[in-house]
């Protein structure tokens, strides 16, 4: 029983750690996709955020300034994507591919210039994003240790859950959200109602980049304390997958990210203790995602106007 509770605590901790950056990226992806712009550049935007967040935190000593700057770096690449796809009507997949090359390319080059290495210098404890409720629980008892694992978590994790609620509220309970969703379904109809589709989409893609940037920053500013070229390896794509999994809804994406995080947590516990092959265990999150799709989720409806550049009639 003690073992089980301990393991469960570790699994839940790992779930949150894995899910947090994915969730930021997924919320970003939601904004972009729902407004009608495919954004496969999330990965590149996360890399930019991961680097910028760590570097700014390192030089200013303040994790929150770093965190926000990570978001802004993501937003910058979001803006590039928006200029290409929304303003100039470029193919969204091609532009996203370009972002995925430019983001890592530029930041790793900057790392070499600033630190003479592809890795940044590790952050000290005070430069990292702080943990909330650390030391609140008595870790000598089994229950306390469990609570400590689950609730004494990084502030960025708490923040992302708040963000999910906010995004859900914005999408479904505000006029802005209604317009945003309409832009992704029928931009022509929006335009006749006097909504500036171009402006809406531009804004949404920038927000998308900002959130992805935050996601990147919380990879390198929490568990890991430095940016390395392998800091962001596929999280952006998993975030996109989580959004498709969640049928392009923020609360659906939350479920997708948590499922993925949970399986990754399972991997940590199983990989450490049992005799099962590590590589097979690592496969679990991906296999489970596919199975969940077949069994529970099924067909995912893409926003009707997604992927199509919107060109004003006149």
């Amino acid at each position: 029983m003690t073992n089980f509770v301990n393991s469960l605590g570790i699994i839940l901790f790992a779930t949150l750690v894995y899910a947090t950056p994915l969730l930021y990226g997924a919320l970003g992806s939601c904004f972009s996709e729902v407004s009608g712009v495919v954004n496969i550049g999330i990965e590149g935007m996360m890399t930019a955020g991961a680097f910028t967040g760590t570097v700014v935190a390192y030089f200013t000593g303040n994790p929150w300034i770093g965190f926000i700057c990570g978001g802004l770096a993501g937003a910058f690449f979001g803006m590039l994507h928006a200029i290409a796809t929304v303003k100039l009507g470029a193919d969204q997949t091609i532009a996203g591919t370009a972002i995925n090359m430019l983001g890592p390319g530029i930041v790793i080059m900057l790392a070499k210039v600033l630190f003479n290495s592809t890795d940044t210098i590790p952050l000290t404890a005070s430069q990292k994003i702080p943990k909330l409720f650390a030391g609140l629980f008595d870790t000598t008892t089994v229950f306390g240790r469990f609570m400590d694992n689950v609730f004494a978590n990084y502030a960025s994790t708490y923040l992302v859950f708040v963000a999910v609620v906010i995004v859900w509220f914005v999408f479904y309970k505000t006029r802005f959200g209604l317009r945003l969703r309409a832009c992704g379904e029928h931009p022509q109809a929006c335009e006749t109602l006097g909504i500036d589709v171009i402006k809406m989409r531009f804004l949404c893609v920038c927000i998308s980049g900002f959130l992805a940037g935050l996601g990147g920053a919380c990879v390198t500013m929490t568990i890991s304390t430095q940016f390395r070229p392998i800091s962001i390896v596929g999280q952006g794509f998993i975030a996109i997958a989580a959004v498709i999994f969640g049928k392009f809804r923020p609360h659906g994406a939350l479920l997708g990210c948590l499922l993925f995080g949970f399986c990754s947590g399972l991997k940590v516990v199983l990989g450490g203790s049992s005799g099962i092959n590590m590589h097979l265990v690592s496969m679990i999150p991906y296999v489970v995602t596919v199975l969940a799709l077949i069994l529970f989720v099924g067909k995912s409806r893409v926003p009707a106007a997604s992927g199509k550049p919107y060109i004003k009639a006149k």
Partner: protein
Amino acid sequence: MTKKKHILDIIAENRFLHILLSILLGFLVGAIFLVVMGLSVGAAYGRLISSVTSLKGFSYVIVYSIPYIVVGLSVAFSFKTGVFNIGAEGQFVVGSMAACCVSILCANVPKPLLIPMCFLAAMLAGAVWGVIVGFLKTKWGINEVLSMIMFNWIAFYLSNFIAGLPAIKSEGTAEATKNVSVNASTLLSKDLINRLGLAPTANWGILVAIAMTVLVWFVIEKTTLGYELKAVGSNKFAAEYGGISVNRSILTALAISGALAGLGGALQLMGMGTRISIFSSQEGFGFAGIVVALIGCSNPFGVLVAGIFYGALMYGGSKLNLEGVPTQLISVIVGTVVFFIAISIIFENLKRIRARAARNAEAAAIKKAEGQKEDKKK
């Protein structure tokens, strides 16, 4: 009445010009970065050019470009048929591993038999990987981009798992497979390589890549199958109405695309690589294939040239650190090239806008003339 073509119209109609312009802009942006970092543009680009123009350098470029061309063809084929094969990475990995296993398990089979066996195994594995995704899509309506991303990672860990199996794992301490049997190697003979002064990994895989280029072009442009797949790619509803089975087309397209990516894996392994190591991160061949297909405008011959160009950048880029220039400069250049290719659509839009303006002006003139007539009547 023949009007002289406006310069913008000429630019708008010529895709090749767009690509060329994008490449120039890519190098320009790269140069700006170099200047900002305080590095010599001449030294960096000079090294880039000098390292790929010697015979030995160029043979390296060709060796590098073989997998890029074939995976590029795979992605280009998928673009033509309306699927975005972001799963080429996984298909490449399983193809490579299939070829590796066949070559290790059948090491003593004579060369003329073993090489085709490896190719076939790789193509089969890649095709299966593609068809699984297609099946998920046609049977359960699961978004192919999502399942491809998952299957890329499943392939990654599957390859790592197989590399650790006793029959496949290297006898030493290396975290890798045994070496590929010499009977499965596509390397040119040592003698020839030394005599011509080529790269030590020079191999005849490029001939396969060229053959595949011609074959893909033939299938897309000259066969009923290619016609059907293209029809589904451009408008699946119209194609279905015309009596083409959309689901079967998607499966066929993914099988062919997957087989090509798998073959790319085999060519890379049997030429340049000697064994498969346990991966720590994705190799990125699938991603490179997407870039090559985009630069090559999804045209098979375009992909051939783009693959060699990409190979040149990759090989030349690996020599950049001799000048103290970060290798990532290449990512920035290629990223910029792809970015400008994406927005080169503005030329076409400009053309449309100009045409509309001309039409409007004409309409206004007619209206005006009619108005004058009415005035006269009054």
